[in-house]
């Protein structure tokens, strides 16, 4: 059986690989969407913070001998705290100004972080080994699936679903959503909105760092890894609908698959297909697939 001249096993394999890449996109765009939703800031530093997450995991191992599993928790916490400092010191004073200022500030921050890591570690990248428990491959019949890649899908799905449940089903999530709708009113009810904003930024950033740790064993830990992925992730957030949590998750996985299939049918176009989709979505549904029309 074949699908568009592509043997089914190859097709299935490509679908799966698309899902794996989609997993990274989903976790990253989820963080971006959260931050945009509550802070109204287009967080250009997101890619750099993803890179910092990978580096923190690398440094934990290199300096302190702390392995992958603790790093999976520690790196997001460390980078999340760093995010909280950024929010308090740098973003807070810009809260009342035009969005553009936040965008410019975070963009500058991204350049600073990248430049600093490039200065100390160069661009050829550092090695980070796949943890022993996740070595090896599953033979699925139609392809060899590295155990680690399977873990990436599982881990990101868990994180995405947990975050979605937190936002949609808990009281804290309800307060957050309310603050998005009308911050002043929520404050009038005695909710500490500034604290909520800070925590949200920290959490969004922690998600980026989590994706960074997940990526570390697959790609070399590299100061440029963030800038390679961030523009794509922005496009995905726009496609999903700015600020929509569900949209970010679903379109993350969906576009990962879309990109993966393009790599079979028209490999040369695989790095622009997401932007083509974005252009089409913006024309047909300007608010994005899951966004509410303004």
């Amino acid at each position, binding site marked *: 059986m074949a699908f568009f001249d592509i043997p089914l096993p*190859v097709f299935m394999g490509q679908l799966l690989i698309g899902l794996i890449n989609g997993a990274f996109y989903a976790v990253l765009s989820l963080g971006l969407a959260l931050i945009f939703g509550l802070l109204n800031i287009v967080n250009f530093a997101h890619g750099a913070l993803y890179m910092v997450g990978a580096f923190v995991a690398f440094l934990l191992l290199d300096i302190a001998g702390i392995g992958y599993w603790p790093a999976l928790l520690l790196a997001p916490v460390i980078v999340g705290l760093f995010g909280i400092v950024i929010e308090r010191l740098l973003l807070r004073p810009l809260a009342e100004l035009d969005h553009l200022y936040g965008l410019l500030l975070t963009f500058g921050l991204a350049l600073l972080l990248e430049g600093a890591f*490039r200065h100390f570690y160069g661009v*050829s990248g550092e*090695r980070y080994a796949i943890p022993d428990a996740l070595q090896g491959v599953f033979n699925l019949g139609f*392809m060899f699936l590295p155990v680690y890649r399977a873990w990436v899908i599982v881990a990101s799905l868990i994180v995405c679903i947990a975050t979605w449940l937190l936002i949609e089903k808990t009281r804290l999530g309800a307060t957050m959503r309310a603050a998005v709708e009308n911050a002043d009113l929520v404050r009038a009810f005695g909710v500490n909105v500034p604290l909520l904003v800070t925590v949200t930024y920290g959490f969004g950033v922690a998600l980026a760092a989590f994706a960074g740790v997940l990526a570390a064993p697959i*790609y070399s830990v590299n100061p440029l890894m963030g800038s390679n*992925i961030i523009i794509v992730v922005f496009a995905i957030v726009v496609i999903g609908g700015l600020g929509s949590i569900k949209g970010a998750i679903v379109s993350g996985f969906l576009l990962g698959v879309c990109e993966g299939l393009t790599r079979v049918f028209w*490999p040369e176009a695989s*790095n622009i297909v997401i932007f083509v989709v974005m252009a089409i979505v913006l024309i047909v549904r300007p608010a994005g697939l899951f966004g509410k029309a303004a």
Partner: protein
Amino acid sequence: MKLFKTMLLAGAATALAAPALAQDGGGVSDDAVKIGMLLDMSGPYSALDGQGSVVAVQMAIDEMGGEIDGKTIELMTADHQNKADIGSNLARQWSDQNNIDLILGGANSGVGIALQEVTSEKNIAYINNGAATAALTNENCAPETGLHWTYDTDALANGTAVAMVKEGNDSWYFITADYAFGHKLEENAMEAVKANGGTVTGNVRAPFPTQDFSSFLLQAQGSGAKVIGLANAGTDTQNSVKQAQEFGIVQGGQKVASLLLFLTDVEALGLDAAQGLTLTTGFYWDQDDKAREWSAKFEEKHGAKPTMVQAGMYSSALNYLKAVKETGTDEAKAVVAKLKEMPIEDAFSRNGRVREDGLMVHDMFLAQVKTPDESEGKWDYYNIVRTIPGDDAFRSLEDGSCAAVKG
């Protein structure tokens, strides 16, 4: 009347200046030999080229004492960001504003070809060390001003691809970086495979740069070819080699041939991932005493052993400066003509000479990456399998397509 006087004065001034100008053509312009380096200083090729190349060229300048017969040697560097337009704009700017004498071009074939055009138009000497494409001395040759020094895609194909086909690895699938360099390397390697009785089952063009090669690797795996040829470089190579291992391609019985592998790639990959890879290189720091001695000095300054590109940068700058000294001028065509007469023999080059078409023909090495057990420590990464004499490594002048030489 006043106008007439002015014109007369202007005419006299021109007449006086003319001999001075003519003289200038025979000497060193602006009393300085100006070298400009256009490199990838921050992107995927900056580890194998970048700052290390600047260090290497500075070593060549220091070796000449920082001046040639009282004329100082000036060095400028800029980041071409892997964009041909940025590279050629910088070259034009250096030519128009700084009166540059030599441009040393680094990795990236797209930029390399663009610089060839600008430098030949502006009559600037141009030596490229990092760009791989053999087009620089074939369809895009400019033999009066432009030289290609360290290696080219022909040499890579004649080394790695031929060696592997002869071992019985006779069916190939290519994963190719989708720009000038990848296309040329793929073309040369396909020719070499077919000429030696092998077959090509297919190819896929991956955008440059790519982080995730799994889709492409899976297609290569599905092709059933014995060898997956990687026509890419830098971080692209690192990611594809690493991921090939992750997806069990080598365990599945297929071989990975990295057609262009630098020392820094092996360092980043680690010997566990890179062991056994066959590669072709123009230079290895441990190839002989001369190379070891120079590389030790380089490591002191740069903190890493030199790649072939960095060593080639040193060699080309040193020989250029020697040629300027001998001819007494920094006029591009005169210096390049001189370089074609000189034997090229230094820490980098063995049995080297610059051919009519601008190609620096020299011995290349077929090497294999050591296993972790064989390696005695950091940077001890290659076993040299054999030396490929320059005339076997590179395409012959007769088979080449440089119009300016063929007439």
